[in-house]
């Protein structure tokens, strides 16, 4: 489902947010520090700061519905993955370097569009909860008339 090119895009250090909803169909959302695509291309792990994970974890555990949006300045390429919750666990110390390196690349990219690294540097990036999702659909979300077209 997620091919090699798309996996590289998702993991290169771009803007990522995770959306869920509760039983009253009210949406919730958090920032994702980094993602890791499973080799099978059908699962993805989203690393969410522990300080924020309570915003979405109860929704995921109760109804499992999730949306991950990715956007890359400066070309504004964007896509959205729909998925269902598989499990959540504390991210391990061995994962930390990879998670923070991806976030660091995102800060560099932000600087390229005029948002100083220092703006987001104080944000909490660790410890994280690793949320694993099974990908059910992928949509193009690059601004313009194609936005919303299915990619897979």
């Amino acid at each position, binding site marked *: 489902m997620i091919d090699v090119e798309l996996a590289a895009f998702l993991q290169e250090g771009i803007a990522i947010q995770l959306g869920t909803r509760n039983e009253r169909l009210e*949406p919730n959302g958090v920032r994702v520090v980094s993602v890791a695509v499973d080799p099978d291309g059908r699962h993805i792990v989203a690393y969410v700061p522990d300080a924020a994970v309570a915003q979405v974890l109860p929704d995921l555990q109760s109804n499992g519905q999730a949306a991950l949006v990715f956007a890359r300045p400066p070309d504004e390429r964007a896509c959205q993955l729909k998925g269902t919750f598989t499990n959540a666990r504390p991210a391990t110390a061995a994962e930390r370097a990879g998670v923070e390196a991806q976030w660091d690349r995102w800060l560099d990219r932000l600087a390229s569009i005029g948002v100083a690294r220092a703006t987001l540097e104080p944000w909490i990036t660790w410890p994280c909860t690793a949320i694993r999702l099974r990908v059910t659909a992928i949509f193009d979300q690059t601004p313009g008339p194609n936005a919303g077209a299915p990619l897979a």
Partner: protein
Amino acid sequence: MTRLESLASCFQGLIPATLFTCSREGVPNAAYISHVEFVDSGRVALSFQFFNKSKANICENPHALVRLIDPDTSQGWRLRLRYVRSETAGPVFDRMALRIEAIASYSGLKGIFKLRAADIYEVLSVEMIEDEGPRAASQWNERTRPPASVFTLHAMQELSERIHRADTLEALLDSMLEGLEASCGFTHSMILMPAAEEGVLVTIASRGYPENGAGAEVRIGEGIVGVVAEARKPIRISGLIRQMLYAYAVHKQASEQGLCPHAHRIALPGLAAPDSQLGVPLINRGELIGVLCVESEQPYRFHEEDKTAIELLGGYIAIAIHSMLQRERSEPVADVAPAPALPTPAPVRAPGPTARAAKGPAREVAYYAADECILVDGEYLIRSLPAKIFWKLLNARQAEGRVEFTNRELRLDKSLNLPEWKDNLESRLLLLRRRLEQKCPDLRIVPKARGRFTLQFGSDVVLVQKP
């Protein structure tokens, strides 16, 4: 609940916001949005440009969540929203549409990248995002402190004094731009006024750019200046680079689908990469006198509280320009300071073979009648009414040996076809003077007294009339 007004910095659009929605079937959706508009203490508006999944969801489930970042403090905020209605007219729609149109005009996307509606949302709660913000008080420093307002009462007073001191149109315009730098810190600015050709604005004064830019034209509706002139409302854009990149992404997709039959990008006036721009219409009694454009390479230079001051300043400058033009028509002449002598060694002489021999190579001034355009030594100088005026002066100088002229005789000259009322002659002459300074500084038009000027040429000229 935190007051929505206190999040003014978040609504500048400097850092993208995220919109979360959910379908009737319970499928969540997340999307980045370029701008969240503050409406009042209980409402915000989001732009509806394309019919996407977010819009579809909102139509069937009014609950939404927006995450915002304050660019000054790095603090993230969460707004829980409920969709109320879509507006396709009114002040909120107009404000949002104008901003989008200005960005679209840069990208050749007019008519494609446009606002369909301003979607109004009730704000149910404002929550601080605890993991997105300064971790400790020690990290609050100069960088994170919000910059102060620039259009202070003191700055306005200083600008006002400059207006009162100016005794010519040229002095007024230059002093205004100088004052915007001295009192407000804006190093790059320009003033455009309507050209003789309908639907065109022409740069008449500028500050901070390598060239004086006089004569640069903008069509009504194009770029921030043209859109300001068309809408007659001020525009402030922060995070311009990012928003233009967003527009280019749309442009790329639309072009690939053949949706941009007239796709073209006009060159940005002024700074190559401005991050903030401010366009102010100069309106006097409903008449567009001009447009003031201020740019900054710094993001987020303009503040919510500056809005009233900016509009006030625009009106004040418009009245000042208008009255200066009126005064020039009606008052008796007054002496003005003589212009400094030309650095060229040759004295100013009447035209003739002797003078030409003493001054070295003559300049060729060609007038293209069909285009009403003048080229000097093969390079474009000016067109339209200022070109006709210059050609008239050059011919009078050659035929009669005259170098002194009055505005009054130009007004009475039927061949120039100046409008009987509001001819803007002074601004046309100023434009001509500035173009000469820029392109051939040895040919000068020097004011001698109000309504009177002289030609001072450091080179001889050869006149060539073309069809």
